């Protein structure tokens, strides 16, 4: 047994489940995470899964964190090693003094263990083989048996798990009983044969409050329902598919007209992403709120249409759940690497509005806001989610909606206005904000119709190849982009308690890891002002924030420092001032990484500034 002292931690540790894809582990692992939540202790789970349906390794990592640190921590305190294929690699990840939980039905040579960890063997296969004859049941219930075993080892309340199972199988009493039975088989074995609890423990707390636990894709879909989307056209692609599917299931519940039984929504699974965006463009042109869900490769295919929507000024909402690129890249891993390809999507001079949700709650808010902004600005709006937010359940504040809120349909000229003789020029800037009026097709018998095209046109939508007409339009589009600055969600700025020459800019799914990193850095006497970007175009407050600091770290999950490039490009800032902090191996960024990288960067800037006088000495 181990020479290292066992890790002792209450409500602050990481459990990782190493499973085989398709073995039914997902629901058992979720049950484990939720039971801890129900004990009032925040958890932050993450799926680390392959591009595969059955057979390849998959992991589920649960960070138990009473302090509420929802970013990935890194390191594993307890490994539940259920996959022989990854045994060696999984064992390596365990922190010294950590724990290994495994199925000891078959003997494993001592050489395949580590001597600095604590090993807990439970004969899961034996238990299940004795209890069940059906091979599928033997496999499925093995997962519940280990949840039972872990609950005793970690002191998780049995009643809480039983209640969760009861909720899950409300309508299937047979499954309810058999799941509870399997849970108890695991519990009883540990109670009889293994010292318990171990050094890692869950203790009832009151740190979850009224927060909710959901996936960003689900939340974005719900935001689209609340925001009034009626048309969803999409093409299946990981990690965005579950967003369109969630939209479907919410619509089936909340969008069927009570009087007629007919659908107040249309969902088309298109033949490809080009058709998806084409349908969204057609629907937006015709006055319906429409969106598509996709990921990087889909954006690549959509770019010609995105340029058309920009040029012809058509409301479009695109939910981009980013994954690792380029090309097929890492389809089941997370990155924030589509920033530039979305910000400047399509040929010619283009710029697009991007929103950066930090968690499922903002996925909900930004999806609804995007539909309003698309109508208001008559242009494509991107909701830049990612796999980490989109496909993992995340603890966040309850979703909110203002009962008095109605949809902002933007500048749409009505039949009455046309009839009264109000001047209509489809591309005429009447209000000085760069946003013209539009009409929905079919509005008026004699007025307000126009021809939409991606070609140059004059302010009255007439075909034109004249330079001045072209310039009028593209300059107006710039003005409109400037107007967008004040309409998009504004950045969140947080000042350190002490004045500091250092600032950090971050966005999206980096948020929880960043929050934790700031705590660590400040306790280490390295105060940092921060700015969380919530949208592009960047409001002026972003430029002010940068100018107020000597160095600004730009924390991103991509290789090429894409947001930093955008900042340099849009504000004309000296690149030396913006220090990239980059994490892009496909795993979610951690507080440990950010803290270490920023500390190192601060040290480097100190060295640089000491050198500077020497350089400048004549």
């Amino acid at each position: 047994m181990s020479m290292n002292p066992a890790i002792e931690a209450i409500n602050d540790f990481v459990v990782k489940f190493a499973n085989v894809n398709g073995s039914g582990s997902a629901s058992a692992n979720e049950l484990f995470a939720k039971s801890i939540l129900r004990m009032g202790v925040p958890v932050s789970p993450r799926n680390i899964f392959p591009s595969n349906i059955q057979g390849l390794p998959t992991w589920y990592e649960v960070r138990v964190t009473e302090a509420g640190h929802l970013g990935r921590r890194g390191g594993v305190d307890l490994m539940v090693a259920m996959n022989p294929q990854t045994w060696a690699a999984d064992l390596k990840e365990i922190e010294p003094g950590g724990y290994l939980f495994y199925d000891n039905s078959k003997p494993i040579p001592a050489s395949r263990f580590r001597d600095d960890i604590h090993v807990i063997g439970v004969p899961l296969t034996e238990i299940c083989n004795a209890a069940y004859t059906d091979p599928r049941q033997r496999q499925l219930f093995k997962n519940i048996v280990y949840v039972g075993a872990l609950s005793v080892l970690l002191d998780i309340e049995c009643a809480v798990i039983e209640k969760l199972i009861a909720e899950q199988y409300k309508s299937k009493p047979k499954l309810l009983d058999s799941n509870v039975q399997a849970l108890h088989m695991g519990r009883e074995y540990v109670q009889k044969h293994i010292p318990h609890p171990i050094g890692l423990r869950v203790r009832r707390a009151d740190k979850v409050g009224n927060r909710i636990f959901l996936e960003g894709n689900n939340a974005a879909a719900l935001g689209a329902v609340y925001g009034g989307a009626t048309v969803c056209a999409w093409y299946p692609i990981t990690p965005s598919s579950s967003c369109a599917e969630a939209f479907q299931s919410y619509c089936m519940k909340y969008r069927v007209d009570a009087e007629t039984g007919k659908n107040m929504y249309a969902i088309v699974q298109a033949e490809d992403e080009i058709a998806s965006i084409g349908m969204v463009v057609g629907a937006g042109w015709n006055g319906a709120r429409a969106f598509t869900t996709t990921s990087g490769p889909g954006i690549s295919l959509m770019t010609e249409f995105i340029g058309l929507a920009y040029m012809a000024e058509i409301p479009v909402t695109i939910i981009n759940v980013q994954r690792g690129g380029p090309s097929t890249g890492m389809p089941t891993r997370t990155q924030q690497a589509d920033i530039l390809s979305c910000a400047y999507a399509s040929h010619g001079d283009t710029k697009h509005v991007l929103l950066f949700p930090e968690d499922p709650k903002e996925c909900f808010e930004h999806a609804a806001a995007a539909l309003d902004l698309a109508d208001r600005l008559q242009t494509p709006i991107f909701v830049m989610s990612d796999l980490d937010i989109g496909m993992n359940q995340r603890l966040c504040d309850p979703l909110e909606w203002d009962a008095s809120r109605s949809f902002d349909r933007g500048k749409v000229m009505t039949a009455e206005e046309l009839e009264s003789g109000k001047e209509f020029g489809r591309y005429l800037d009447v209000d000085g904000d760069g946003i013209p009026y539009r009409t929905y097709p079919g509005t008026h018998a004699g007025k307000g119709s126009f021809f939409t095209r991606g070609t140059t046109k004059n302010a009255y939508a007439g075909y034109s190849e004249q330079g001045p007409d072209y310039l009028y339009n593209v300059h107006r589009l710039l003005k409109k982009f400037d107007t967008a600055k004040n309409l998009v969600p504004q950045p969140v700025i947080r000042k350190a308690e002490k004045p500091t020459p250092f600032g950090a800019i971050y966005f999206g799914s980096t948020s929880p890891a960043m929050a934790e990193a700031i705590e660590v850095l400040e306790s280490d006497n390295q105060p940092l002002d921060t700015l969380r970007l919530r949208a592009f175009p960047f409001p002026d407050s972003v430029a002010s924030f940068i100018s107020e600091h000597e160095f600004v770290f730009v924390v991103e999950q991509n290789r090429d420092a894409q947001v930093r490039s955008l900042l340099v490009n849009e504000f004309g800032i000296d690149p030396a001032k913006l220090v990239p902090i980059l994490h892009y191996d496909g795993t979610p960024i951690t507080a440990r990484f950010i803290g270490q990288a920023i500390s190192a960067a601060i040290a480097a800037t100190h060295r640089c500034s000491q050198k500077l006088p020497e350089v400048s000495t004549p």
Partner: protein
Amino acid sequence: MTYLAKPKLHHPSLTQNKACHTRRDYEGRISTLCAGCGHDSISAAIIQACWEMDVEPHRVAKLSGIGCSSKTPDYFLGNSHGFNTVHGRMPSVLTGANLANRELLYLGVSGDGDSASIGIGQFVHVMRRGVNMVYIVENNGVYGLTKGQFSATADQGSTSKKGVVNADSPIDMVSLALQLGATFVARSFSGDKKQLVPLIKAAIAHRGAAFLDVISPCVAFNNHPGSTKSYDYVREHNEAVNRIDVIETKQEITVDFAEGEVVDVEQHDGSVIRLRKLKSDYDATNRIAAMNYVQQHHAKGEVVTGLLYVDSEAGDMHEHINTIDTAFNKLDSKKLCPGIGVLEKINASLR
């Protein structure tokens, strides 16, 4: 093209239809296509058909892709909203537009390059989905706007103006549409207005995906000997299977025809397509037979025209997905937003 502006004044003798419009109200800007272009004849046929059908011009949405044919929506129905979309992608835009507002008449205009080459994927899927529309391919077998390259409908062995022989087999849009489930399939010739106008009217009356392949010679690049899309070739090889009339409501057949020569097909809107058979063995309500017939005659070098297939019982995309009768763009937040009560329940279910 002509540089002569059309006089704005309406001649008092121009008759008004039931929608209180004269033919002139269905016209658009002056065409910028070449003099003699088949596409202009098709535009004229669309104008004629819409006027005769008493269509309200502003209740039409005309959409196109990119190319000579796709320019034409600017040249008819000037009071309709038009959309010149992306090359080969008009079908998806039309589909989305149709989803947003099912109350308008959707007219998709495309070419053989736009629909059979770059856009064949979208053509295929819009037919499968049964989008309620009139989809016209102005088929000249050639890329006109880029000066004379073969398109995917050019017949194998036909030659370009410069004498290059086309080695690839052609895509027959009509056979494709039949196979894909289009519920109204016709072929016509831009030089045969008598056949074309009633076919467009019938397509307008049809609910579901109506497809018209209109052979439309390109006078600049594909009207020479060696082309199978020239005026001369199509006139010589045109094999019309029927002639049709669209009548508002069913009237007694008064003209004396031999038994079996005239078939009435009632449409969803109550109008009737009266089919006068020119080929006694041709049955326009049998999809499989239509496919065989078209293929057999194509092998002989003939261009089969007429109403090739119609299913008047067909439903459209909205029926398939059970959407509400109201146009989506008229639904407000009261209808569409589930409200805070529901949101609280959802929140509660996520704890």
